[in-house]
């Protein structure tokens, strides 16, 4: 096989690469996505929040007043088994790893919400996922539930059980190990 690089073919290849890149930026400009070219921040993914990146907390009593409002979404950051055992009614299952790659239906609900309340088994677990979600959806208002699910449960607020059918990316979250 002998490779010769002819100028017209090189020029066409350059047109394809440059034209494709420009088309990509055009599509990005036209299509609303959560990717910001200028302010992209990779999440510190599930290993703790950076100083200054700590999301605001919300108290369980304040959160329960928001429960059931159509523009407020609750997100459960705990493992699937704990979610299936019991979670805040209508909460989505969004573990921290899932905050990076989200099922489209969940992404739409999170993006359309006025407020997302994230909770884990502890305040910190919720805060880490809240931070990942805040970076994933820069426009969304995300707060972490202080005290996590135990604090909610201890007050006897509304709970539900079972897997999250809406949270399917490749399978139901409740079926994950």
């Amino acid at each position: 096989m002998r490779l010769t690089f002819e100028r017209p073919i090189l020029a066409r290849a350059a047109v394809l690469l440059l034209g494709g890149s420009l088309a990509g930026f055009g599509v990005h400009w036209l299509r609303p996505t959560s990717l910001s070219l200028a302010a992209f921040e990779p999440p510190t993914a599930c290993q703790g929040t950076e100083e200054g990146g700590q999301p605001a907390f919300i108290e369980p009593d304040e959160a329960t007043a928001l429960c059931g409002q159509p523009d407020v979404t609750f997100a459960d950051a705990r493992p699937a088994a704990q979610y299936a055992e019991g979670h805040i009614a209508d909460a989505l299952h969004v573990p921290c790893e899932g905050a990076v790659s989200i099922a489209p239906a969940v992404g739409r609900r999170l993006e359309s919400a006025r407020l997302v309340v994230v909770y884990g088994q502890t305040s910190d677990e919720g805060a880490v996922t809240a931070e990942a979600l805040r970076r994933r959806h820069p426009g969304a208002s995300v707060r972490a539930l202080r005290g996590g699910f135990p604090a909610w449960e201890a007050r006897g607020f509304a709970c539900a059980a079972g897997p999250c059918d809406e949270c399917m990316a490749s399978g139901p979250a409740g079926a994950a190990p």
Partner: protein
Amino acid sequence: MRPLAYLAARLGLGALFLVAGALKLRDPYAFALEIANYQLFPALAPWLAAALPATEIVVGVALVAGPRPWARAGALAAALLLGAFTVAATSAVVRGVNISCGCFGADSGPVTWLTVARDVGLVALALWVYARPEPLPRWPSRRPGAASAAR
């Protein structure tokens, strides 16, 4: 036989680029994260995530449907892109960075030496398509007498 092999390589490579580009286009943020995870040029990750999927689709269209000069240019562009992917994958494996390859968008499986070998094979295939501009196989004409006239 050779024109058929050329056609299969050209269409296969083009289809691969079309599928890869379309899958990456679905979630640019997740793709930007995959690029940032390579830890090569993290600041460029969102720009590459915006530009690469459409570029792959354009290259795929040139390979699948372009006239011969454009298909050759598409093969050359594909070889350049795949060469860059090979360098990035090799760098990740050598540094022991355990990441998803991002070759077909999010959740494409980890980067391993197998990924590198696959990319090297695809670079060779793209260069073969570029270097062997075989004419496409002709379908037999339906016009009466055309077959005998062609002989």
